[in-house]
């Protein structure tokens, strides 16, 4: 028999790992669409922050998590459109403009928070939904079936994203635009329209990712709430080789490490807290080293603005 203490610790790690994966999955799947269409959106983190704040503030005022989520999606759409305007219409250097969007989001969310809320207060977030029957299963129940709505939605998004990318005419256009925009152009596909669509979708999903932190997982807002998750999501898209299921596995890997280090701290397992906190970031670097080896399958037009040439 397994030690009951160890077992419950294991269940906690797995359950919170799944919960933590939510924001990564939304952000990374959104980023996947952008990158497959050929645009690297480094501003995900900034979008997440503003959306997280917006969701939090709306819930603070109305006590309605649904309205908060809507606010986050709207913020995501607006910032996604702005990103598209910068990188598609103005053809800005994507790495640089993405950092700009991030710094803008970081500053704006903090400013608004200081002006409107001032101190850290908890809000009522999405409640946990216990799926009938399944949630009562021993071990599996607490790990898989006692989460809030957004957790289930994140995992449902993955097969949906795979389906859209691989089985629909829209998905074919997205992939074509990322691999050879000139070819798509000669076939009458508007490269700009496709990229605006994927970036707006990615913005909306980043918005949900932000909300999943501020009104579902933590139910608070504070400066730099996302602490780099948006950037890690960008890295995870490379790590997952632009395939939704592999991206999801990457997200789970990260969130599990995060859950592990938290559990270790809570249970006073003697390793320095700094080292534990570093683990997800070290993993990011390792992930990128792996990703460097699979440039073969990278969207060939990634980061290249499209211009109808001579």
């Amino acid at each position, binding site marked *: 028999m397994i030690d009951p203490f160890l077992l419950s610790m294991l269940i906690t790690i797995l359950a919170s790992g799944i919960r933590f994966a939510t924001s990564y999955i939304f952000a990374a799947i959104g980023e996947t669409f952008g990158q497959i269409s050929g645009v690297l959106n480094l501003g995900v983190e900034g979008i997440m922050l503003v959306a997280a704040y917006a969701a939090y503030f709306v819930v603070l005022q109305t006590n309605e998590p649904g309205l908060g989520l809507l606010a986050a999606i709207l913020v995501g759409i607006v910032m996604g459109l702005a990103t598209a305007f910068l990188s598609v219409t103005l053809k800005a250097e994507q790495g640089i403009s993405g950092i700009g969007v991030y710094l803008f989001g970081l500053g704006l969310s903090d400013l608004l928070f200081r002006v409107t809320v001032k101190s850290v207060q908890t809000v009522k977030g999405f409640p946990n939904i216990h799926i009938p029957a399944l949630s009562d299963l021993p071990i599996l129940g607490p790990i898989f079936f006692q989460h809030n709505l957004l957790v289930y939605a994140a995992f449902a998004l993955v097969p949906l994203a795979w389906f859209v990318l691989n089985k629909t005419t829209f998905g074919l256009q997205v992939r074509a635009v990322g*691999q050879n925009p000139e*070819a798509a152009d000669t076939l009458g596909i508007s490269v700009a329209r496709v990229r605006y669509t994927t970036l707006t979708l990615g913005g909306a999903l980043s918005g949900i990712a932000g909300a999943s932190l501020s009104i579902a997982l933590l139910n608070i807002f504070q400066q730099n709430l996302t602490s780099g998750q948006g950037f890690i999501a960008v890295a995870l898209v490379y790590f997952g080789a632009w395939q939704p299921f592999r991206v999801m596995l990457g997200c789970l890997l990260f969130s599990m490490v995060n859950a592990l280090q938290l559990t270790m701290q809570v249970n006073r397992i003697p390793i320095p807290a700094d080292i534990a906190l570093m683990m997800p970031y070290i993993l990011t670097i390792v992930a990128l080293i792996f990703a460097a080896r699979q440039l073969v399958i990278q969207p060939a037009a990634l980061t290249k603005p499209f211009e109808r040439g001579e």
Partner: protein
Amino acid sequence: MNIQHVQLRNITKRFPGVLANDRVNFDVRAGEIHALLGENGAGKTTLMKILYGLYQADEGEILINDAPVRIKSPSDAMRQGIGMVHQHFQLVPPFTVTENIALGLRSAREPMLDLDAVGKRLRELASRYGLHVDPHALVWQLAVGQQQRVEILKALYRDAALLILDEPTAVLTPQEVKELFVTLRRLTETGHALIFISHKLHEVMQISDRVTVLRDGRVVGTVATKHTNTKELARMMVGRDVVTSWDKPPVKTDDQILRIEKLSALDDKGLPAVKNLSLDVRAGEIVGIAGVSGNGQRELAETLVGLRRAESGVVSVAGRDLTNHDPADIIAAGVAFIPEERMTMGVIRDFTVQENLILETHAQPPLARKALFDFDKIAAHASQLVREYDVRTPTLDTPVKSLSGGNIQKLILARELSRAPRLLIAAQPTRGVDIGATEYIHKRLIEQRAQGTAILLISEDLDEVLALADRIAVMYEGEIVGVVPPNTPVDQLGLMMAGAKRVSS
């Protein structure tokens, strides 16, 4: 879709500083192949991009079956029954053939793809026109000729009645050209109209019914192919008589200059590209390497000049072993190199004409004294070369990127030949260069041969190799499959280039 007659009337198109098309008239009828002939920059591609909706004409009109039409985008063109086979294939390499065909089309099961239905109709079309290709194959795995079939099928699938073929033979082996011409004839028999863009005179003579020649954006004339010949067409294209065959006085060729022995090298992916290759070039001799692009020619050239590691084997020049020496050493040993990537390896785009002319010699006297340049000497040196090699540039301080391809190539030639090399490695020296500059470059190569330089000419243009080489080495999959004299029939060379025939030397 039924197209009987397409007319372009008085088409004018300006780009900043350039009049690309000047009141151009052109027409094509169902059942004929009308060739559009002209130098690079003559305005052929611009005219066709206007017809295909990628550009808008500033003036002029397009008529289909005598009715004016507006073509504002490729989708408009496709709706009117116009299809284009681009010179650089517009295919998505990681997609399957079927996915490439389906791209941009509405599916019967919108928003879902219906690849089965597309594949079925694709197979019907393929067998009707003899364009056989596996619908499930990934495009990047197909040979170039097969990729071109996919391009043609893509247009036919969209019910194209008029097909524009932009330099379709540029990337094909002689055998593939033959197959393409059979397909084109079959298309005219089924009532399609074809526009064949080219600068290769004998192909135009062979396949077209009528020829229109463009020069500097204007129509020089339209002639029935059976009433003209290559000499007349060349004169129309260039505006004067053009030399295409050269007298090559025998040169004493005793000294072996370049010796390649059992050389092996890898490509960028780490796969064998040059396999156990042996070849020699003597002083005063031009050895042509013929072959289809991608058979290791680029890797061979780079290995010879020290830009790529030789895995095994020996490269020696005038008896000195230079295997895996660095480029500076090899340059110092008297090796000149005209690289195939003119803009990335041949020059520094943003540097001026005179800076590009001294890339190799700038640190040596008389151009430099210790660490300082002698700008007067540099200017004198550069202006002499510019004059001697007829590089058309406004000033010595013009960035090379604003020169034409032919002039950039003459600049590279000037730089390399001014060092009086013992060995010249010329890779695709006239690719994308107009006839006038090509003629000039060929003349220079022949002169260099007469002065006793050993020349290794690597070219995918078989006509060029046939016109210049004293011996032809055919390269296939990293190996020399035979060394033959320049009077070898083209058919036999074609078979060797396709790997179907070997000749032991």
